[in-house]
């Protein structure tokens, strides 16, 4: 069965603007409609992935032939990340059922729009279209970040708006420079004609695009918004940021580095940014007392590891980076959902007031699986990402980078171990039992983490296409 990839974008967009009509009929069905749409979208993404594994799909929009028209360029890796984003979106939409604050209609519309934007960023093959989807994602994210309408929410969202719109201005500058030189916006067309560009202008364009997408990808000097935005947003929204908008931002970064510019000798720049991001994230996460802030800083650290993997630039390390995107999307979404329950159950976001909260097995077992996976323990998916990034570094002989990477990982293990100790400590305190919308998503994520941890072959098969991606393919 052939599914056109554009459906993955059109379906959430269509339903996002159909929701107001549905809400006239009944407000209670909204959440089930959103869950259904997201589940269906995930199935479509799976079919597209199977198609894309045979040969990259080029979906021409509105009948204009590329390079003039807009084209969706869906390679195996793009389809894989799209599937990851869609599955994460579906499972998080289950947890969204616990959001009770009005206006729920707008919450669900924005959550469909952020899904549409993130999927579009991953699938598109046109540089300006990438910018438009980036803006759709980030405007939806701004709205969701301030959804609570309290002080924390507005502060975080405002920081995000300021950083995000500076970033998107830089993306636009990069696009303008490329268009001025090459008169084209199609990614593959740019890649083939890159030699015509003035070498210095090329570097300026690369740096503009890299910094622009770096905001969304939580790269070091541009990530001041991350902790406050994650902390101020509603709990399901924090999970969405970690597993959807950040993932699409980092995939756009990979597109810029490999598909458009095909750089190999400037990758040291990317590695250094990555390692700075890792250290910044992990070390500040260590001193945090607020659980969501700790997870947000840890998220920065993990994104730094992915940037590093992309920067090392060998087949193995880029495979590791993509595996890390997968494991981080699943693991961090799980941890944010668990954190949301804990804050609700303990009545505070301070970790030292959460003694014994993990002793309920419905929460404790998925929590433990998620934490071990994020740490990088072997039977879970988090292991493979870190392992392949390190192996890629070894192959190239970057021993200093590996040493720094491992040092940061030890800090990560330290603060997560401290958190495990608090969560599983004996305590007299009774916590309210989680309802099904809390533990169902936790268990689904935990099953995915364990399943692909024990049997990673399907993912590795998909990631074997990395070599073609690095060579400038779709």
């Amino acid at each position, binding site marked *: 069965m052939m599914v056109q990839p554009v459906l993955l974008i059109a379906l959430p967009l269509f339903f996002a603007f159909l929701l107001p009509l549905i809400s006239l009929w009944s407000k209670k069905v909204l959440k089930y409609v959103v869950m259904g749409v997201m589940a269906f979208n995930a199935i479509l993404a799976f079919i597209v992935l199977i198609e894309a594994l045979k040969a990259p799909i080029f979906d021409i929009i509105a009948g204009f032939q590329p390079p003039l028209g807009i084209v969706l360029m869906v390679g195996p890796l793009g389809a894989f990340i799209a599937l990851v984003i869609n599955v994460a979106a579906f499972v998080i939409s289950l947890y969204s059922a616990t959001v009770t604050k009005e206006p729920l209609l707008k919450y669900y519309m924005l959550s469909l729009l952020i899904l549409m934007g993130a999927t579009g960023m991953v699938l598109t093959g046109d540089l*300006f279209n990438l910018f*438009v989807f980036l*803006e759709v994602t980030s*405007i939806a994210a*701004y*709205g969701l970040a*301030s959804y609570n*309408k*309290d*002080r924390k929410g*507005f*502060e975080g*969202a*405002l920081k995000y*708006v*300021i950083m995000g*719109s*500076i970033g*998107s*201005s830089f993306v*636009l*500058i990069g*696009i*303008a420079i490329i*268009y*001025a030189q090459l*008169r084209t*916006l199609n990614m593959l067309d740019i890649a083939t004609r890159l030699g015509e560009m003035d070498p210095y202008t090329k570097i300026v364009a690369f740096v503009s695009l890299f910094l622009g997408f770096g905001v969304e990808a939580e790269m070091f000097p541009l990530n001041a918004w991350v902790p406050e935005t994650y902390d101020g947003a509603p709990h399901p929204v924090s999970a969405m940021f970690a597993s959807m908008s950040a993932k699409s931002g980092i995939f756009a970064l990979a597109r810029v580095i490999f598909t458009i510019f095909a750089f190999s000798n400037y990758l040291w720049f990317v590695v250094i940014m990555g390692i700075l991001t890792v250290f910044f994230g992990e070390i500040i996460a260590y001193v945090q007392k607020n659980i969501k802030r700790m997870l947000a800083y840890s998220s920065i650290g993990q994104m730094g590891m992915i940037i590093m993997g992309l920067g090392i630039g060998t087949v193995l390390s880029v495979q590791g980076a993509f595996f890390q995107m997968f494991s981080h999307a699943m693991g961090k979404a799980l941890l944010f959902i668990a954190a949301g329950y804990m804050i609700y159950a303990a009545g505070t976001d301070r970790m030292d007031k959460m003694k014994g909260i993990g002793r309920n097995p419905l929460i404790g077992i998925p929590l433990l699986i998620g934490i071990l996976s994020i740490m990088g323990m072997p039977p879970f998916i988090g292991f493979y990402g870190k392992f392949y990034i390190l192996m890629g570094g070894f192959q190239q002989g970057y021993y200093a980078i590996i040493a720094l990477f491992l040092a940061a990982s030890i800090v990560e293990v330290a603060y997560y171990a401290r958190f495990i100790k608090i969560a599983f400590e004996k305590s007299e305190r009774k916590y309210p039992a989680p309802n099904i919308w809390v533990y169902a998503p936790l268990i689904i994520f935990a099953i995915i983490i364990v399943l692909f941890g024990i049997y990673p072959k399907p993912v590795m098969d998909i990631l074997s296409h990395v070599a073609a991606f690095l060579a400038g393919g779709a």
Partner: protein
Amino acid sequence: MIPYYYLASIALIVIGIYVVIAKKNLIKIIIGLDLMDTGVNLLLIAIGYVKGGTAPIENANYALYVDPIPQALVLTAIVIGVSVMALALSMVIGLYKNIGTLEIDELRRVKE
């Protein structure tokens, strides 16, 4: 020689970044963002400019047209910019209702 419209757009972008970094008032920061947006839009329009060209509409009297694609891009970028500004300003209103100040320094002080 670099044409003056490039210089103007770069000046607008740099002034915008300076305002965002240096000013302490949230409304001024948002004005800075808007300046930066305008600079980028001017840069895009300038790229498509052809000397002596006319609007890109089919017309027998003219042979030379400016590049239509940057104009389409700028239209999109303006719409996006306006919506981001509106959202940012509405957030500022929300923050003001919660705290009663727009100065970043005071915002930090209220936190303690």
